[in-house]
């Protein structure tokens, strides 16, 4: 078999799982189109996280394929046709799982990284 090897973007693996979680979280507030999702993540992270557009859409495709999102076309606040995404019940459960895992991870890393008392 000659499976074509995908050109891996450095660091994208690391980002992937996290971005998925961020997107799901962004949609917890309600249906949104891609641009809004990117803006929400940026704003909520105090502009620390700049969502790379090149990763957002593949992530949306992937999440929808897994059944965590579904999408529909609607008119945006700017009076433009845009594709809106919303969480499915399955996606909501996934988000809860991931949030929990994330919290555990942050706590664990925090524990490791806490100042060492000599």
């Amino acid at each position, binding site marked *: *078999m*000659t*499976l*074509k090897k*995908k050109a891996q973007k450095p660091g994208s693996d690391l980002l992937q799982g996290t971005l998925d979680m961020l997107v799901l979280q962004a949609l917890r507030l309600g249906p949104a*189109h*891609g*641009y*809004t999702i*990117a803006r929400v993540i940026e704003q909520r992270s105090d502009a620390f996280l700049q969502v*790379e*557009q*090149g990763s957002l*859409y*593949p992530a949306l*495709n*992937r999440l929808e*394929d897994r059944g965590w999102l579904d999408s529909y076309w609607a008119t*945006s606040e*700017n009076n*433009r*046709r*845009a*594709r809106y995404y919303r969480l499915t019940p399955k996606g909501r459960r996934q988000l809860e799982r991931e949030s929990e895992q994330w919290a555990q991870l942050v706590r664990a890393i925090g524990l490791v990284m806490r100042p060492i008392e000599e």
Partner: protein
Amino acid sequence: MRRFFRRGRLDAERAREMQAHLDHYVDDLIAAGHPRDRAIREARRRFGNPAAIREEIYEMNSLPVFETLLRDLRYAFRMLRKTPGFTAVALITLGLGIGANTAVFSVVNALLLEPLPYPQPERLALISYDARSPRGENHSTGSDGQMFMTVRDNAKTVDAAAVGGTTGVNLLAAENQAAYVQQQRVSAGYFRVLGVAPLVGREFTPEEDRAGGDAAVILSHGLWRRLFQGDPSVLGRAILLRGEQYTVVGVMPASFEVTERHSFQAGQGVDLWTPLRPSTKGEGGGVNYSGIARLRDGVSWTQARSELQQLSGQAFSLWQMQPDVTVTLGLVSMQEGLTADLRQPLMMLWGAVAIVLVIACVNIAGLLLARGSTRTREIVTRMALGSGRAAVIRQLLVESGVLAIAGGVAGLLLGWGALEALKRLGLDTFDFWQPIRLDWRVLVVTMATAIVTSVIFGLMPAMQASRLDVQAGLSEGGTRAVAGAANRWPRKLLVIGEVALGVVLLISAGLLLRTFVHLRNQNPGFDAGDVVTASVSLQDARYRDPAKVNYLFTETLRKVRAIPGVQGAGVALGLPYERLLNNGFSKIEDPPTETKITNQSYVTPGYFETLRVPLRAGRLLTDSDTSESPGVAVVNEAFVRRYFKGEHPVGRRIRSGSLEREIVGVIGDIQQGSAGWGNFGPISPLPCVYIPASQTSSGFLTLVHTWFQPSWVVRTGGTVAALLPDLERAIQGVDAQLPIAKVRTVTEVRGDTLAQQQFMMSLVAGLGFIALVLAAIGIHGLIASSVSERTRELGIRLALGATAAQTMQAVIVPGLVLATIGVAIGGASALAVSRLLRSFLWGVTPTDPLTFAAVVILLLGVALAASVIPAMRVLRLDPALTLRAE
């Protein structure tokens, strides 16, 4: 998976979505005070390349297996299109092989595999008997009266019935509505055993089915519609059958199909049924019934067989047997019993088409191998560039798969065409109970054949290709090595094999052809030109009296002879090429118990003269041989050779039953159909006794007229068409209620007798021809590819001064060597195979030197032609160009 198929549409949607993203971005930037053009630029810059993103998503949605399969398929189609010659040859080869198989399998399917058209056909049986003696064993189906009635009255495990012969009879449904119809006599319970109830009315009661019972008749659906317009009130109506009155008691449904393997008039449907009235004397004294039985519910075959075996003593109590012979009663499955005679020829035929298919596969394998070797460079290049072995094999398999499926479709079409052709060729000489058609079973077998062929024969070159040493392959291909033929031996073996198989098939076809020609060209023993025959059924109550019969003969002959252009006319019980009555006789000087068997026919004066049969000694029959004059007979030379060898037969006396006759003349032999005894061919000059029609008894006539229909033979100077109305008028002029059953020329009678032989021969010859074509393609392919592979070598030879003739020789000789080896192997195998054919051969030995020599010469000739044609390419070689090529 869903996304895989929809990804084209999804991609377009994604593009629109991203455009919307950009637009929103631009809106925001403008709102933040940027000028429009800068906003657009900035948005684009930040967003990145939408096409690249879409491509990434597109990839995400793809399935690798499908992807590669589609690519392989596309590639395969492109390869096949680029080599139209190869593709055409491969498709023809596969099409022929699979087509022939499809057609023959359809026939086999209809005859041997399709169940009988009755409910629960697997529980239907024929009553059979086994005769065992120290000299051997004999297994037969059929019953006599005692056997059948024993089973009917005693067996608890089976429900039994019997069917007698089917004969053509005269029916008078109303005044001036005479018809010639096929009557079958069946016992009470016949329809119940088969499991088909009458559409209207009822079947025969046991009371009707015994001597002296009411004369009842059941009509076929066809006859009911034809004569009574489907009127249900026909029940109770009286019709005149054979001059006797019968009451209609039932009508069978249209779906009731009748098998008539036991009728003398095969190929005609049954129009009506009358009670069998079985007896242990006369007809029932010999094995003239077919006993059928249905196993009762819950009874196994073993139980039924063992019960019947216990009834053997009673069933055969009337048989006079030698003390060392034991006969036991048994059962065979009805389908098996009905197809017993056909099984062997059909299986042979199937064997023949299987050989054709093997040859076709061999060709395909050869073609693929050849292509594999010409594509060595392509393959090693791909492997050198990192393509895996598996990828190469997969690619080659997909190619041969595409080829096989296309070939399967071509085969199906060809098979359908062949089947139509077979039907026209006279497939109806066999008895069918199912229409022959391409059904799903045939389809499955055909496609399975194609796919198995593809896998096996596609794999072989693929494996060979994948074993290639990349470095050697590249360097060999690169420098066009001089004679790198080390890996061609599998192809050579294949060519040897297909030539050998072709020889076997062609020799079989040749032997059957010689048999057919032998039978056809037998000296008829009479002048067959311009002789028309017309037969009528005299199985009729009005014709039990010999005087009536002879009045009919004399009067009609007087009228026929008066027709202008008629040169002679006579009547006989049996026509040339037809089967004749078997009868026992003894010489007067021998004790009456010592009977010999002969064929027999009654004839009127004028019969021999009309046929122009030569008189060898004594005299022919004349008008002065009457019922009052002394009994006489004319015999033929075959009779004399068999029973009066070296003696002078004229004046000698023979006895048949209580009647004594003097042999008054000897005539030349006339070809007759199968004898029914002894070891005679389908057409042969049988020993025969001819007695005057005037010197027959009522009992004799009644008996023989149930089996045979007398025929008028007329020699005319004019055309058959012109004679026909006059002939009809002459017969109807004497008896207006006597319909003519059949009008044929003597040549047509011969054709009817030989129909099965002709059918088998045409079929095997057709297969032989296909095999020849395929073998030629195989040899041609081998030589052609060896020429193209050796182009460089041949160019060098030419450049070094070899003549074109020498170069061609170098190419052709290997082909001829292979063909010769193949012919030798095939010839040896044919010697073994033709022994199996022995029972189908007449007038030719299974080792007929002429056939063997002709096939050998034919195949070597074809091999030579198939080698020379591609070798001609050598003549067009320009050494300079060749050396520079590649």
